[in-house]
């Protein structure tokens, strides 16, 4: 058990987004030192985005510390002493903030799609299982790991605590927008977080924003909207993601068919089998994945080899806009047949990617009972949904914007040394 719970001397981490991250609680310091938390250093926050924005090499470790720091400031500087805020929940909030992404795996979006996994299940397993993280949390109290797990799973009874970590304007989103903007080098991710923190107010079930802070929130919503379209949905990043996903599909299929790998996928075996023990999950990080991709460039299977070369050498698929109307769907079926005739497997080389395939969202007020919107606290104490007060937010959240792209290997199609006629026909169709 922790006696006193505080470190003799405050520790600080230098951080490019928040300047300093302050640690005063022993449990936080111990959690940061666990092997499960240190593993997050080896998992990039933005997956394949570094292939588009070369600065985007930051990790989930940086982001997790950032979310912790934002929550610490909200609690210690803004909420303390206010109505509805129960200060005995402080340590729980800090731990949940620090650990909220603990179960993310390498390139987790693709991994989750291919192997039908959910990183949140692994977050729960790490917090509740036989791990260093669990041991550190149990020093606070026997039921403390369970409480932290419930906050992260959004099933903790105190909804205000949950909304700090996960809501339409939470510490997670605020940190990743600022951090991703900083590391990608784009200018449109910035907003005045200090101002938002100052106007946040605790209510029984959620955090609300004082009406006087509406313009800072508008800026946050705009930043979220811009980052969504300019960074998270960048078509080149999506191309890399498509290739990564196809590599995993191909490796799994080859394994199931009994293909003899030159470099055996030993770290993937439980993933292929669909039953992943926590130890196997934690053993996999991006360095290991990239090792296999490096090695598989030289496999005999031409598809696996080609896809890995594409990823490693950044020889990505090209894309064209694809609006899947019925006419275009018919054309897509025709294209698939032509690809087969050109000896290019359409299951791996002709891919439709949609905005709903990506794990980001922008703000929508939605429908009553759908999910909780952002509320403004009016001077008379009334709560008003943000888009009802802000013309700007109403304008961008009312517009539906979706996006579909069709990815293909232009270099294969431009090589007319084989199947010249059919490839020309394919290119004609793709060029519309």
């Amino acid at each position, binding site marked *: 058990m922790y006696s006193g719970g505080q470190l003799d001397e405050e520790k600080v981490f230098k951080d490019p987004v928040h300047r300093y991250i302050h640690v005063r609680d022993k449990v936080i310091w111990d959690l940061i030192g666990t092997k499960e938390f240190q593993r997050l250093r080896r998992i990039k926050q933005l997956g394949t985005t570094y292939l588009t924005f070369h600065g985007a090499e930051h990790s989930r470790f940086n982001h997790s510390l950032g979310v912790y720091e934002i929550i610490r400031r909200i609690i210690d500087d803004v909420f303390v002493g206010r109505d509805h805020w129960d200060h005995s929940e402080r340590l729980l909030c800090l731990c949940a903030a620090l650990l909220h992404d603990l179960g993310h795996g390498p390139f987790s979006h693709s991994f*989750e*799609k291919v192997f*039908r996994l*959910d990183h*949140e299940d692994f977050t729960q397993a790490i917090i509740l299982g036989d791990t260093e993280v669990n041991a550190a949390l149990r020093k606070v109290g026997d039921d403390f790991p369970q409480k932290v797990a419930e906050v992260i*799973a*959004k*099933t903790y*009874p105190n*909804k205000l605590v949950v909304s700090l970590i996960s809501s339409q304007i939470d510490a997670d989103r605020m940190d990743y927008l600022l951090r991703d903007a900083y590391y990608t080098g784009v200018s449109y991710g910035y907003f005045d977080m200090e101002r938002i923190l100052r106007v946040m107010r605790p209510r029984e*079930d*959620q955090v609300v924003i004082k009406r006087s802070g509406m313009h800072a929130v508008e800026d946050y919503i705009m930043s979220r909207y811009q980052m969504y379209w300019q960074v998270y949905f960048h078509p080149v990043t999506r191309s890399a993601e498509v290739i990564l996903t196809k590599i995993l599909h191909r490796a799994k299929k080859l394994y199931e068919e009994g293909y003899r790998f030159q470099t055996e996928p030993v770290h993937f075996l439980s993933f292929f089998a669909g039953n992943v023990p926590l130890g196997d999950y934690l053993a996999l990080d991006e360095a290991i994945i990239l090792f296999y991709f490096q090695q598989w460039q030289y496999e005999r299977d031409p598809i696996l080899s080609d896809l890995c070369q594409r990823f490693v050498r950044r020889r990505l698929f090209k894309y064209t806009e694809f*609006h*899947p*109307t*019925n006419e275009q*769907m018919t054309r*897509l*079926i025709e294209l698939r047949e032509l690809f087969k005739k050109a000896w290019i497997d359409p299951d791996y080389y002709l*891919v*439709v990617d*949609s*905005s*709903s395939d990506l*794990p980001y*969202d922008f703000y*929508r007020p*939605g*429908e*009553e*009972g*759908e*999910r*909780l919107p952002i509320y403004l606290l009016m001077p008379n104490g009334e709560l008003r949904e943000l888009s009802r007060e802000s013309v700007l937010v109403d304008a961008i959240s009312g517009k*539906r*914007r*979706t996006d*579909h792209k069709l990815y293909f290997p232009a270099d294969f199609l431009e090589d007319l040394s084989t199947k010249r006629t059919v490839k020309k026909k394919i290119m004609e169709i793709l060029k519309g």
Partner: protein
Amino acid sequence: MLTEHAKVMKALAAAGEIAGRKKLQKMIYIAKKLDFPFYEKFDFHFYGPYSEELTCRIEELCALGFLHEVKEKKSGYVQYRYTLTEAGEQFLRHYDWDMPGLAECMQALNEQNARFLELVSTVLYFEHLPRDEVKAKIAVLKSKQRYTEEEIEEAYAYIDTLRSQCNNKARV
């Protein structure tokens, strides 16, 4: 290609018309928990299991003209109704596979109201816990809905009925 979109549309085609996004969310979640192959990721939100991925997918289907969305003003709030369009029906013809039992399941779910489906989906979300713990969770997390003991028992009975119907259909 666009298989996940097609699955959601098959569900909507079977249901006919769905009134309310909340209801639609809960119907797909319940179908997923009954082992129909929906792969949208659901998290627990303020109003029970919710999938942002499904919301985006529905938006895309509306934008493509495959779903018809009608916005209705109810007393103090807005509700959306969804039906398949002719273009949507045509789109579905590209997918000749079937999900046995889905149509009956969606029709049965659509006969229930959103409040009850919210309860059923919440029970399913905590299904791995003992029944008493599930009841305690509902009492705390859904305190504003004031679900009674009878309603919770009804939800359990309803889940059993749905499961046996789906299993029978899948076997046929």
